């Protein structure tokens, strides 16, 4: 298992470094339109071919990787943090706190997530250049995508509240802060890790949905989500199979994320 973990970590670091190096070697290549070669297949000039505007797919894939590899985990981290706070407080303190927090969670879960995202994103400035649009999109995903995780964290924290070792700690005179930080939080780690890992691909796909509705990362900046939109046309994908590359990379990266964390801790 340890070897697999190392391989996965190596792949993740490799992918990220390659995307960084590519941007240093040829900055802004992802936006250049080679108008004489739209929809070109793989060649020496364009290893993965070009998109419908003649932009190098490899350059776009690597630039999109930077965005997705940095920001989707960051958004997942933000969402998990909020979930830990809300779910942890609700589960551990119980009573009115639990009702209040779970009420907020239920409210968030009852709202259609995509429409909530759309409304929130449409209220924020739209006429911004590419990088701010990227940041806005992922911060929004992090801020709105915590509710389901919070409910699971709450259930975990509630179970811990009545556990023997917490009762023992309390009987020994441990302060509530110490119990929360030294005993509850470490025991919630597997749940939080699982929620964090689940959130990454969800946020990548949520960004793709936002992009399809015009509220994602703006042109000409690429993102995995934006590139996955190219797959919605089944026949075009069959005709240009190199367009599957972003999907393949997404699968590899999310699988690697699953593998780099100790599985025994997740059970």
């Amino acid at each position: 298992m340890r070897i697999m973990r190392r391989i996965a970590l190596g792949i993740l670091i490799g992918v990220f470094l390659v995307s960084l190096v590519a941007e240093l070697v040829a900055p802004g290549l992802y936006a250049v339109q080679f108008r004489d070669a739209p929809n070109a297949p793989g060649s020496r000039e364009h290893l993965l071919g070009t998109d419908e505007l003649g932009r190098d797919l490899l350059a776009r894939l690597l630039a999109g990787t930077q965005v997705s590899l940095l920001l989707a985990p960051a958004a997942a981290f933000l969402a998990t943090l909020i979930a830990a706070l809300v779910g942890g407080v609700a589960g551990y303190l119980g009573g009115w706190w639990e009702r209040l927090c779970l009420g907020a969670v239920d409210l968030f879960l009852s709202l259609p997530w995509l429409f909530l995202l759309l409304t929130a994103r449409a209220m924020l400035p739209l006429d911004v250049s590419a990088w701010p649009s990227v940041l806005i999109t992922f911060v929004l995903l992090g801020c709105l995508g915590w509710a389901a995780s919070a409910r699971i964290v709450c259930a975990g924290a509630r179970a811990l509240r009545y556990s023997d070792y917490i009762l023992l700690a309390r009987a020994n005179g441990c302060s509530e802060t110490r119990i929360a930080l030294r005993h509850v939080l470490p025991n919630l780690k597997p749940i939080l890790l699982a929620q964090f890992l689940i959130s990454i691909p969800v946020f990548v796909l949520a960004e793709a949905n936002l992009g399809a509705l015009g509220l994602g990362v703006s042109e000409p900046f690429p993102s995995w989500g934006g590139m996955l939109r190219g797959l919605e046309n089944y026949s075009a994908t069959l005709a240009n199979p190199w367009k599957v590359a972003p999907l393949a990379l997404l699968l590899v990266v999310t699988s690697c994320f699953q593998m780099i964390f100790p599985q025994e801790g997740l059970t």
Partner: protein
Amino acid sequence: MKRVNATLLILAPLISLWAMAQAPAGGELRFCLHAEPKTLNPLLVEDEASETIRYLTGGVLIRLNRRTHVLEPEVATSWKVSKDGRKITFSLRQGVSYSDGTVFDSEDVAYTIRALMDPELHSPTGDSFRSGEGSPQVHVIDSAQVSIEFPAPVAGLERLFDQVAILSSRSRQKELAVLGPFYVGEYKPGNYLLLKRNPHYWKRDARGQRLPYLDSVRLDIQQNRDIEALRFQRQEIQLINGLDAEYFERLSAQMPGAVQDIGPSLDTEQMWFNQVTSAHIPAYKKAWFASQEFRLAIAEGINRDDLCRIVFGGHATPAVGPVSPANRFWFNASLKPHPYNLYGTLRRLQQAGFRLDGETLRDREGHPVEFSILTNAGNKSRERMAAMIQQDLAQIGIRVNVMTLDFPSLIERMTRTFDYEACLLGLVNVDLDPSAQMNIWLSSASNHQWNPEQKSPATAWEAEIDHLMHTQASTDDSSKRKAAFDRVQQIVWEQAPFIYLVHKNVLTAISPAVQNATPVALRPQTYWNVESLTLAAERRASR
């Protein structure tokens, strides 16, 4: 004698069988609607799916021949427009019946016009007829003659009747009783509509055979264009009316004889800058957008040939102005598309006080030239055009941000909040006559997108356009109308309030099994002559 009679008795059925085999008849034509029809009432049509049903089922007084662009009599045998353009008198065809057998006469025309102009009904078709205060007066002269008098002249009055399907005033089936070649036989919402041959349809071919030849038309409701193309390949449907360039190329590789590029359509794709004075845009940007030189520079900084070649796979034509070359009479042939010339663009901008500072264009006060283009999300060709314009203008130091929004939000910004800087959209033209564009060109109009609903024209050239549009609408003299509208096109070219980009070509797919199909640029491109369409015998046999 008995032998002769016997021979005749044997030959007669054989001859009639042979004649039946020669006569084109039978079969079910299938194609797709891309959305659920919103209504089956022909007076309330405003979407494409409902328009298709109206075209296939509705009987009209006058029909515009989509190929020759000439008006032809249908259930009216002739018509006469008064000199002042306010009154039209129709002579009606005798012996015509609705699909349910109800007899057609002038009372039905009167009933339809009254319903059409009823303010309670809110008929989009009726809106085209509203010329002034008050309702039109319908006079039934006799069972075969009817006249309609409007409170004010209606420009190009007779061609408006191409959109008016005549309802029956007496039929119990209400709007489902039709005068057209087919009637709605079956409707499964979300699934399909089956139009059956109207047994009482009045039209016959040159040999006297009753039209239409087809038994039925099945309209499958299918939003997914990919599935539509696959079904066409499998011969499950026989027509695709408006193909995307991408699907056209794919089908052309697999079924080269089945697809056709008919040439430029009437539709336009254009961008414009927000010139609404109350819009929340910095004053220096408003000054750019109001500058003729700035707008022209942008018009010349866009490579239209590349847009046509890359976004539409070569199946589009660089646009000159609001009228497509497909509109042969009204197109101002003396105008040419704005030439793509980066050097000329920069020189023009420098003359207008802009300067290139490194890789950034700045105005007189030093503001970097940057604006956002708004377009509707999900429309791939517009998103791609915006991305290409972004790169074109980046070469002259202009930074463009592309914003895509869902259509309702876009319309909200475009028409109510005016919270946008530039917009890229298209306009679907269904009418050849410039009077249909009054709601765009008059400065007081709500669709005068760059600065709508002006109390008085904001600029001298808008005042001139107002005058010219009124002039062309108030005369019957086609040469005067043409001269006036040519000048409108010239002003639009010089002032570039709309920066016209391309006219998409009409791309169609017609199965080899369909006979007599002659696709044209006007809607409905493939089945405009549906009553003459037939299916090959082997196709009918294989069903």
